[in-house]
């Protein structure tokens, strides 16, 4: 009776807007962009949009029905998702693409997390970015005013302004053209004018607050200003960055999605700044020209943090009260840390303990902890060492190095070699040598020939003119000091530049090294065989004929 409070009713006026009305307002705000897309890309756009909205509604209805939850079609959120999804597709997208996007957006992103208001990522944007991972479906940007027919899509693919910006030059379109939308891109993103009209409508109807778009675009503009490339005027560079791509579309329609943006005003500003910074960093330093989608999705995942950080300051609690409180708490926590002071008093036995015993007890526990830590470290080091030792990483590396050395000896002009599909009898392996510019230089043939006391394995490099570029012996059983005389670099170098069939005397011959005749002949035979194999390599993959030439 003494208090008037308990009997008060909630406000008996109003509810100036409802959820469904807000969603309807978003759709109204997107209409100019949709109309512009129809004007630019033809009536195909309308069918894409209808398919997208229809499939979103269908998936929403089916999911709610199948899981026995009440229908939520009337809140229009699925319509908005469908419209946004359609407007972020290229005009050339097949009609089935929005269905796939809608399934992911509605079922996985939205309904799996509990439906409207519970999802942590923007459904339409997540659906669009899923589709963007199939590059073939999504990167065929058609030129505006090149209206597409309804069924057959044979669009002239146009480079988007972003691909010019990505290389650090201004796009060929003037700023007025960019502003009106004469650029390649998604359906909804091309016309900045129409997007700004829609955004203004939303702000004036108080469906969204200006905080997120303003901080997003402001940060993006500032960062663009910081990274102006040489020889480009700063003003037109910043304007082109803002007007091209889906920056304005994202700032007004994706980043402001109420569910996936922070609740608190300060958090919203931080969200916008984060989106702007990420977008520009992705545009400048990633391999993709556009970064809006990933930036917004990334920031969507940080919303919980921004909400905590942006909680309004308590009324009447001073400007930096939270920070001050935190600092004093941190100071208290830090003061909890005590450094051990050796409690060494050199008196006689006290309370049944030797002097310093208490301190030693303390040290013992710490030593034990340190010991455990050391043991764990040791075990880890052993495991890593063992893995390193037994997985033959070094061996593999050494082999690769040896291979490279061999190649340098056999074919100096080649930078690397690779296996070929050719097989030939008598050749242990045939490898193709390539120059640093990826051009075929020649072939390396591994052959064997009978030497004085066993097989001599050698690698012979032959260039495309059929000339020997180098010979290297990789394995042999010849007598050291006698047979190996024929394997010295000088002896082997004599073969370089020879072609055809090499004889032991006369023209086109390499003389046998005295004292190592059998080995010399074996090497010559091997080189001949290699030359013959290369000469017949034209017959791809077939058996290469080889006739043992006269020696």
């Amino acid at each position, binding site marked *: 009776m003494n208090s*008037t409070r308990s009997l008060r009713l909630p406000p008996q006026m109003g*509810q100036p807007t409802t959820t469904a009305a807000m969603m309807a307002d978003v759709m109204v705000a997107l209409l100019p962009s949709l109309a512009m897309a129809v004007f630019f890309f033809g009536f195909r756009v309308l069918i894409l949009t209808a398919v997208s909205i229809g499939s979103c509604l269908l998936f929403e209805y089916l999911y709610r029905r199948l899981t026995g939850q009440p229908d939520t079609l009337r809140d229009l959120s699925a319509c908005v998702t469908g419209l946004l999804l359609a407007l972020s597709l290229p005009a050339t997208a097949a009609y089935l693409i929005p269905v796939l996007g809608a399934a992911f957006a509605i079922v996985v992103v939205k309904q799996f997390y509990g439906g409207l208001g519970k999802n942590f990522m923007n459904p339409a944007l997540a659906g669009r970015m899923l589709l963007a991972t199939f590059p073939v479906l999504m990167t065929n940007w058609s030129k505006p005013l090149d209206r597409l027919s309804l069924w057959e899509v044979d669009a002239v693919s146009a480079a988007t302004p972003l691909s010019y910006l990505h290389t650090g030059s201004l796009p060929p379109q003037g700023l007025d053209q960019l502003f009106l939308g004469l650029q390649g891109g998604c359906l909804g993103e091309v016309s900045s004018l129409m997007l700004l009209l829609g955004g203004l409508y939303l702000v004036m109807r108080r469906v969204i607050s200006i905080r997120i778009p303003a901080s997003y675009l402001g940060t993006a503009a500032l960062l663009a200003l910081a990274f102006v490339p040489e020889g480009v005027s700063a003003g037109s560079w910043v304007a082109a960055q803002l007007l091209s791509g889906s920056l304005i579309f994202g700032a007004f329609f994706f980043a402001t999605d109420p569910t996936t943006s*922070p609740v608190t005003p300060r958090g919203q500003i931080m969200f916008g700044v984060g989106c702007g910074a990420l977008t520009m960093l992705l545009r400048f330093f990633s391999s993709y020209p556009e970064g809006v989608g990933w930036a917004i999705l990334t920031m969507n995942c940080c919303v919980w943090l921004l909400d905590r950080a942006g909680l309004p300051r308590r*009324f009447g609690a001073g400007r930096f009260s939270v920070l001050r409180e935190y600092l004093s708490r941190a100071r208290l926590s830090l003061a909890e840390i005590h450094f051990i002071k050796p409690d060494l008093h050199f008196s006689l036995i006290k309370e049944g303990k030797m002097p310093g015993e208490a301190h030693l007890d303390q040290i013992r526990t710490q030593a034990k902890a340190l010991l455990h830590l050391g043991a764990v470290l040791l075990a880890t080091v052993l495991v890593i060492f063992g893995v390193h030792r037994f997985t033959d990483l070094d061996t593999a590396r050494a082999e690769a190095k040896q291979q490279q050395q061999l190649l340098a000896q056999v074919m100096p002009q080649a930078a690397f070699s690779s296996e070929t599909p050719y097989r030939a009898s008598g050749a242990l392996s045939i490898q193709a040598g390539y120059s640093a510019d990826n051009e075929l230089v020649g072939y390396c043939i591994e052959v064997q020939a009978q030497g004085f006391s066993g097989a001599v394995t050698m690698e012979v490099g032959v260039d495309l003119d059929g000339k020997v570029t180098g010979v290297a012996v990789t394995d042999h059983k010849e007598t050291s000091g006698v047979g190996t005389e024929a394997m010295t670099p000088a002896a082997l170098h004599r073969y370089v530049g020879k072609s055809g069939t090499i004889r032991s005397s006369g023209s086109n011959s390499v003389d046998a090294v005295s004292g190592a005749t059998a080995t010399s002949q074996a090497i010559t035979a091997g080189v001949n065989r290699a030359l013959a194999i290369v000469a017949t390599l034209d017959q791809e993959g077939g058996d290469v004929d080889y006739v043992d030439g006269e020696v």
Partner: protein
Amino acid sequence: MRHFFFGGVNPAPHKESTRRKPIARMEHQPKQVVIPLVMSTGEAAIPAVKPGERVAIGQPIAVGRGLGVSAHASVSGRVLAIEERPHPWGGVCSAILLENDGRNTPWPGRPEPLDPTQVTRELLLARVREAGITGMGGAAFSTAEKLSQAAGKVDTLIVNAAECEPYITADHRLLLERSDKILQGAQTLARALGAQRAVLVTEGDKLNAAEAVERRLRKRSGKVELCTIGTRYPLGAEKQIIQTVTGREVPPGGSPLDVKCVVLNVATVFAIQECLFRGKALTHRTVTVTGGAVSRPRNLWVPIGTPLRCLVEEAGGLREKADLILTGGPMMGTPQHDLEAPVVKSTNGLICLTQYERRQPAPESVCIRCGKCVAACPMHLAPAFISQAVRQGELHKLPRLHPQDCMECGCCSYICPAGIPLLELVRQAGELMEKGGQRQ
């Protein structure tokens, strides 16, 4: 430098129907008036008259004690009975029934009018206590108590003529028609309380009243600042008006005295002026009778204790069925089920809403985290998080969100597009916090 308060909402004002109607005396005097013994946040007054006794206007008929205030006869006539009667704040309360003889005889024993120069602090407090003045904006706190606490400790006196609630125009008309007296009252109060600044705060939709005040300010020698602020609910709330005028924020759990301010409603200032310089006790006040269901909406000068039914009859009766009848504004008002309840000292309006005007209880939908409630809360709360914490039983989260700061302005419930009863949930959270605090 201009200061602002954070948040707030802009409900449709609906003030057009009464803002041009002058304050009128009642054509048909009420046959009976009901003076409840409880008219302020404090103990009930003790009746000082017996049934059958004759009383005159302004005669004290019940003596206040503690924080309670005295009651005075608002009509001349005879005491009929002292019995339980419905009270506009809900429930029943013992009240003194007076029969009106229609002669309006003033009480001969009323105090002498004072000269403006001879008002001292003690005299002011004694006169205000004697006249039984309470806060007339809705909170109904004893003004004498407020002034005695504030005396000598404040540097700013704020006269609140913001009247940010929709529909109500009582303070607006009073400021327009009695601006000279209000300025005199404000000046006297500021001098007596030792406040350097006296600020009269009004809203942008009362520019004609602001103009009238300004015209009189030019003639007067004393200094009263006039501050006209853009219309936004709840500018009239104590903490928000202090923040707007001085930039100071009342600390959590504190009172305006902590920031050296005192806020008085414009009708209270007028009542103080009347009691000081005309010797009148608080027996009449302005009430706006309006709403879509009323035939002839108007501002009335009514004796305190007039049953609400008489007000409706005075305004031409109901032209259609009233879906809801409220005393006070539609944002913070109290619903009335029994029109026999009387006008009390804090009743500034009687609003009869039709079904069309009233907010229809729509089915609640889910929170889409739009953040409108956070952006609208003038007390820097986050109703979305508080309601979520209450509904999910996560009481450990509440201390960080300090729901006990809520002043129940209702902005969050008003603005919520999902129709979530945020105000109730925040109130519940505040109660839970208090309980938790007691347990600890």
